[in-house]
């Protein structure tokens, strides 16, 4: 009886039961439809797997309990009154439940995405092992193609995009003085779609014919003509995309409607601006990749001819639709990082962000321009030639708002009081490498050069300078910066710095040489290469292993510090933004009293300036005991000079 009750209640028992139910439904639909049409055989493996890839994740989401409240409401049953039992986490088990607390969801996101980050990183190292010598060593060409496809897909859809959603989930409501996100149940649903998407991509390795092996770009008609593994990508992306869109809507509504009294748009911290603009990009662009993958799915499964040129389809159309999402996606993966860097640089340089309004305007400019550059990925694709020059010009123009941001961070350092904490090191490392990635981006925009280097290792180098040296370094900066807030503990500063320096050096020795081999004639996405590139590839491979090892320091630091690091003060960085004015970790409902915003977020050095006040000063814990690391816990408005 107790067991039956457990099976009926939301949770892992019901979720476990949902798998066979989902598979049964999928199989049932296929068999029924095939029987009605009189198709033979009734059991078609490919069709069953395809439908099950839709029905099983949905069944799981129902099983784990994402839809319970809505189902009750929709069916007219009495809804369970919100008792806030879904808020907060007291043990690790609480992180494995459907939880509606934005802080719990934030940590669920971050831990889950790092799990996929580690797997995708290991795949990268396996590829580097294969590429350490020409010829075939460890993996078959098909496996190799699968490895780089899954590597990129996990890194993009299961790490960079959602980890930013995780950090923002934790920080943004606190920063704007809100008790939670606008739609907490939608927030939980967004999270739980992610592990499903990741699992689907990983499971593709077990599909007959191997995992999807057409790159994360899945260009048709290769993707419409490959074995079953491709379906795992086509459908996995749908779940990751739906998660992304739902979260972005949630951020938009939260940021527009739930800011604390007094927080005008021009008093929002730049992290909030960054997530606001990112969410605009996500909501507008993501449906396009969903569409492109649905077209592939229909071509594969339903016999449509979107990309079959023999039947009137258009091969280049795939690339237009795909890149109309996937170029803005680069900014989806970059703008939240810009926000993190603004927070870290201003707090650690003890200075207002230089040109705050231009920083916000440049984010908006990137959003607008980001939609006008997609075809620069297609200069050699055979698309109509006239579109190339306008796309070259818009691509170059987008360097200007990006340049504004770089120059403004650098100017923020000027005459500051610079604390070289671990997050600050990562921020400065980011500025260095993102500048390099931006420069190689300009080079790629110049059509005649792009004709030579497109689809080479030069592009591999560029994308890793932008997405690892760029995005991932901002992720590290953000995690170290908000680690005390999220866990209530301090991380180990020496290990953090060691992690930075090893990452910085080995990042550059791994990806720097890729520029050379690319220009020199080595194409990307190859399991084998010409003898002349051997020496450089050996060097890259060795660097990449050391680079991978440096990540273990981060992992060790995070785990041991979370378990037993020194207790963190409310405001170890003496920052002004609101999340630092509550305890570390914050109270379950964030604020006993909603703060009132009275000034800008970065008024460092301005005598008497405050960003937000709590009416009852005694309750604001900012002015409590000194912090154990990273400087004292002096109340932010006081200028102690």
């Amino acid at each position: 009886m107790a067991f039956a009750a457990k099976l009926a209640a939301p949770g892992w028992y019901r979720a476990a039961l949902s798998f066979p139910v989902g598979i049964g439904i999928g199989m049932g639909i296929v068999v029924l439809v095939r029987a009605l049409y009189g198709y033979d055989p009734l059991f078609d493996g490919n069709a069953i797997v395809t439908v099950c890839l839709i029905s099983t994740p949905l069944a799981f989401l129902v099983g784990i309990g994402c839809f319970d409240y809505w189902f009750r409401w929709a069916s007219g049953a009495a809804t369970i009154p919100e008792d806030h039992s879904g808020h907060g986490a007291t043990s690790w088990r609480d992180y494995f439940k459907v939880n509606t607390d934005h802080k719990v969801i934030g940590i669920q996101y971050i831990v889950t995405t790092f799990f996929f980050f580690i797997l995708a990183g290991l795949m990268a190292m396996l590829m580097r092992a294969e590429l350490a010598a020409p010829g075939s060593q460890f993996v078959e060409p098909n496996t190799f193609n699968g490895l780089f496809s899954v590597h990129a897909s996990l890194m993009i859809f299961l790490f960079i995009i959602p980890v930013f959603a995780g950090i923002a989930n934790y920080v943004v409501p606190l920063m704007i003085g809100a008790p939670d996100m606008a739609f907490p149940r939608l927030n939980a649903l967004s999270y739980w779609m992610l592990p499903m998407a990741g699992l689907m991509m990983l499971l593709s390795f077990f599909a007959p014919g191997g995992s999807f092996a057409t790159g994360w770009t899945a260009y048709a008609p290769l993707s419409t003509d490959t074995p079953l593994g491709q379906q795992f990508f086509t459908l996995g992306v749908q779940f990751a995309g739906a998660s992304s869109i739902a979260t972005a809507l949630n951020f938009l509504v939260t940021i527009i409607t739930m800011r604390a009294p007094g927080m005008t748009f021009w008093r929002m911290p730049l992290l909030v601006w960054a997530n606001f603009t990112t969410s605009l990009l996500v909501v507008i662009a993501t449906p396009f990749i969903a569409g492109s993958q649905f077209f592939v799915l229909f071509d594969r499964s339903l016999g449509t001819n979107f990309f079959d040129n023999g039947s009137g389809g258009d091969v280049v159309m795939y690339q237009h639709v795909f890149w109309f999402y996937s170029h803005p996606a680069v900014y989806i993966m970059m703008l939240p990082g810009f926000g993190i860097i603004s927070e870290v640089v201003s707090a650690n340089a003890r200075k207002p962000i230089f040109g705050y309004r231009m920083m916000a305007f440049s984010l908006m400019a990137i959003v607008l321009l980001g939609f006008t550059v997609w075809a620069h990925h297609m200069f050699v694709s055979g698309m109509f030639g006239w579109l190339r020059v306008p796309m070259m010009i818009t691509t170059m123009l987008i360097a200007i708002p990006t340049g504004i941001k770089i120059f403004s961070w650098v100017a923020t350092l000027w005459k500051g009081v610079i604390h070289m904490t671990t997050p600050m090191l990562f921020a400065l490392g980011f500025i260095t490498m993102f500048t390099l990635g931006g420069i190689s981006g300009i080079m790629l925009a110049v059509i005649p050069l792009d004709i030579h280097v497109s689809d080479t290792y030069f592009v591999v180098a560029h994308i890793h300078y932008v997405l690892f040296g760029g995005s991932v370094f901002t992720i590290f900066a953000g995690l170290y910066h908000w680690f005390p807030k999220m866990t209530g503990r301090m991380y180990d500063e020496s290990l953090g710095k060691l992690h930075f320096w090893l990452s910085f050096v080995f990042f550059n020795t791994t990806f720097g040489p890729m520029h050379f081999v690319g220009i020199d004639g080595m194409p990307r996405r190859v399991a084998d290469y010409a003898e002349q590139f051997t020496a450089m590839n050996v060097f890259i491979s060795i660097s990449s292993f050391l680079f991978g090892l440096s990540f273990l320091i981060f992992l060790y630091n995070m785990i041991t510090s979370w378990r037993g690091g020194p207790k963190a003060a409310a405001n170890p960085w003496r920052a002004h933004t609101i999340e630092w004015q509550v305890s570390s970790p914050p109270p379950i409902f964030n604020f006993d009293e909603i703060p009132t915003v009275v000034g800008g977020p970065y008024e460092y050095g301005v005598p008497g300036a405050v960003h937000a006040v709590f009416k009852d000063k005694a309750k604001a814990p900012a002015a409590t005991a000194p912090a154990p690391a990273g400087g004292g816990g002096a109340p932010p408005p006081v200028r102690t000079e």
Partner: protein
Amino acid sequence: MTRRDWALMLTLGGLATVAGIVLCLMIDWFPGQGADEAKQIDTLYDVLLIVSVPIFVLVMTVVIFSVWKWRAKPGDMSDGEPIHGNTLLEVIWVTIPTILVTGLAVYGWIVLDDIEDRKPDTLIVNVSGQQFAWSFRVPKQAGVPKQFATTELQLPRGRPVEFDIRSSDVIHSFWIPDFRLKSDAVPGLKTQIRVKPSELGPHDIVCAELCGLGHSTMRQTVRVVEPKAFEDWAGKQKGSGGSGEQAAVAPDTHTLADAASISKVGAVQ
């Protein structure tokens, strides 16, 4: 900031710029220059390097100098000077990059027009990509007495060539690194590149677009010979009368499963 600080920063920045540019120009970036177009593209790249180095050095100089000059002493709880912005500076760092990228875009456009220009006396070569080999069909024209098909292409030095590129299965990308030119081979489309080979000898042909299992083995060579030698060679080729565009290619019957066995064989030379 004393006058000495400025002098130090500007000197070091200037030296680093010069050193960076010299270093970047000394590096032998490209494979051999096999065509006239390659020379223009290599020069374009040099210009891009010369423009890029000062920008990177500027950012790095200010970052490193600031950290060196204004790093907090242990226990320093003070704040920096509350500088909120500087309109003139912001106008400058919008204007200068705008001018730079506009210049580069115009220059890039000019080079693009140049290398894609139609030239007289062009030799037409039909290229067909198929998992996982390139094949060529040279139609009857000046210097080619009759149409023929081959997988081991030769080209005359100094005569402009137009490659008309097609694919019979998935997307490939026809790339000759020594010529600096590539174009995707797209099912249902004819794409073109134009080039004037200038360097005798073999040049690699590489497939640059992921096309399946054997993608990394889809490599061949094209040999550039003296015009006389080309005409001799072309004259000796067995004619292929086929009128279809894909005359040189086997009928498109194989599936990807068959392709797997092809990939084991390696490049078709």
